């Protein structure tokens, strides 16, 4: 066994900063440390070996708290190799530029996959795990906040409200005769801030503004369609879904940027929720079209809704154009509208359901 490679090195006992000369060799499963004062033996498994790097000295920690320190890194690595010791896979990986580039590519692929599939899947799954009672409370709190900030009591006659509610209830009843529609609660509100609008909150709270009801006063079926679209959001639990998604994206960005920057981290979260919310609109449209179709209303009634909304946007833009300098702020010109109108116009009855 005396043929084992030896290395002259420096040893610190952990009590005093005084260094001592030592000679190292590996005998079987033991590291043998020869000092002037005698020999010390340590089980190889209990030694915390220095990781190989191209810069810096080598420090290996022994189980009794003492330390071997070797200034010449190359000499140390050569001795380790000559003694037949192998290093961890990760250490070798970090020393190779090729492996690093592979790791970089893999990170990009992983992030892309997480963004496209992982996060949507996880947030959808998590959103559906949340109990209904909790979701309802979340919606209730949201309702209270909106009520305080943006909503005024409705000025529509109670009769009209009742008629619309009945009409929607009947449509839902017809489309879901087995009662598998999500529970919902419809309320009418005036809103100066939101204009002609409708939205759904977690827990089935659906709000439609007086302005939108007036816009579609002669098209009650289109109002049913709008409400069905909102019920689609409730059905897919989009509110919770988007909330979880935004958090997951922020967490992901936090991991990548680490301690680099806080304010950069909020940008991708906003972008992601925008991209995802377009998908959510599509899902809700599909739900609405199906509901209308099953309750005996042609989904193409929704075309009127989109056209009137677009008209109103044009009027708003013209009004704004006078007092606003022509800044290129309005970049997006709602290409979605065309696509959505086509979707409702070209809706085909589900062949599986005659």
């Amino acid at each position: 066994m005396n043929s084992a490679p030896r290395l002259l090195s420096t040893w610190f006992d952990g009590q005093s900063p005084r260094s001592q000369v030592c000679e190292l060799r590996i005998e079987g499963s033991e590291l043998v440390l020869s000092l002037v004062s005698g020999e010390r033996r340590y089980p190889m498994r209990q030694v915390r070996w220095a990781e190989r790097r191209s810069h810096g000295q080598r420090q290996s920690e022994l189980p009794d708290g003492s330390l071997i320190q070797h200034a010449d890194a190359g000499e140390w690595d050569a001795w380790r190799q000559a003694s037949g010791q192998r290093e961890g896979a990760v250490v070798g990986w970090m020393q190779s530029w090729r492996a690093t580039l592979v790791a970089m590519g893999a990170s990009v692929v992983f992030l892309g996959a997480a963004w496209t599939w992982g996060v949507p899947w996880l947030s959808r799954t998590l959103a559906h795990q949340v109990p209904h009672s909790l979701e309802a409370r979340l919606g209730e709190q949201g309702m209270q906040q909106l009520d305080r900030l943006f909503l005024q009591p409705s000025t529509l006659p109670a009769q009209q409200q009742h008629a619309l509610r009945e009409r929607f209830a009947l449509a839902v009843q017809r489309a879901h005769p087995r009662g598998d529609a999500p529970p919902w609660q419809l309320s009418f509100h005036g809103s100066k801030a939101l204009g002609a609008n409708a939205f759904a909150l977690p827990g089935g709270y659906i709000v439609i503004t007086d302005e939108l009801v007036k816009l579609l006063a002669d098209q009650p079926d289109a109002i049913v369609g709008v409400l069905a679209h909102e019920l689609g959001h409730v059905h897919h639990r989009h509110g919770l879904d988007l909330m979880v998604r935004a958090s997951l994206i922020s967490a992901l960005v936090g991991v990548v940027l680490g301690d680099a920057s806080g304010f950069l981290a909020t940008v991708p979260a906003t972008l992601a929720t925008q991209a995802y919310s377009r998908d959510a609109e599509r899902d809700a449209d599909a739900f609405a079209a199906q509901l209308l179709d099953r309750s005996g209303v042609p989904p193409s009634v929704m075309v009127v809704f989109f056209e009137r909304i677009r008209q109103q946007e044009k009027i708003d833009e013209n009004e704004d154009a006078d007092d606003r300098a022509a800044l290129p702020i309005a970049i997006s010109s709602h290409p979605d509208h065309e696509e959505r109108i086509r979707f409702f116009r070209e809706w085909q009855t589900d062949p599986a359901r005659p």
Partner: protein
Amino acid sequence: MAQHSEFEATEVLPDSRLPSSEPAHPLDIRFTGSGSEYFRIWIVNLLLTLVTFTLYWPFARARRLAYFQNNTLVGHDPLGFHGDPWKMFRGYLLMLMFGVSYWAVSNFAPTLAWLPLLVLAVLWPALWRASLQFRLRNTSWRGVRLSFTGDLKGAYLCMLPFFIPVLLMGMVFGAVASATQGAEPGAAGAMFAAATGVLVLATTALAPWLLARIKRYQHGGYAFAQEHTRLHAGVGAFYGFSIRSMGVSLLCTALLAGVGAIVAAMAGGFSGAALVMLPFLLALAYLVFPLVLVPYTTSRLQNLLWSNTRSRRIRFDSQLRFGPLVRLTAKNWLFIALTLGLYWPFAKVHTARMRLEAMQVSVQGDVNAWLAKAQGGDKGILGDAAGDFFGIDMGL
């Protein structure tokens, strides 16, 4: 610095006990880390952290700390890092649990969001001390572990004044809200604004004193062998630092305002100019403040702290200069932007080198004769045990 004079009287006492025969010799600090190597470490760590859903994070952190410490040479000996990643893993799980529960509470029951914040605030001083202990105990030089000797009571006492403004804020707002019930909204708004203004002023006036308290606790707790450090900088020095920093930020603001005025004058009364100018000025502010103010405060605070930290036989000195740090920061930012962030590890290494190599340690007498008392482990104080069990490390 002029502020030292008020403390000279206390310094004479311990110093006079030193044997004058022992010569002081300086130990240079050098940093041998390389950007390209840290880049590889960073990328591989990133991939492993991603594919393990962040569970690898403490292991990555241990490797990163070991890299930075092993490449910091004091005299000719590197610092060692001995943190056990598995212990850090436990601490990470604890923090993760806390983060997730905070997220859940603030999203599902926003009215209760103050509860986890309160818990964190109450635990904060203990966590801070535990992480200082963990870092110091797991750092060694020439085989001897450093330690942090600040006690739990001290940690709470030095942070206590932080809670007072928060409490005051709550009380004042409560009082204003009840006093203005029924009054017209304009009056309530004015009272809120006045109360906020007073509180902000008071907090600004007290902030340097708070900083001094915290830093005195922190820099008064470092120990190596028989040496225990103290921070010999008075509150006045911290006020001086804060006033100068404020002056620099005012100067930056004046500069921005000047540029704005010149451009506005050149555009000449054109009404759209103000609209175009605003985003431009904001972008400039985003650049100027981190590029000037951050390097200024970083360099001045490091110099203030480390030039005044010493024990009986150890003296630190820091001469980090503002100009080179500004140039380095500007260069780092430029390259980070050009490489879409890939330059970040290089920037980190370069900054660490400049900050570390601006420091010097001088030691009186023969270090080899020093002896570490039996440290750590056997003390058995709950805080120690918890800090060590969970390997709590908050990246200070």
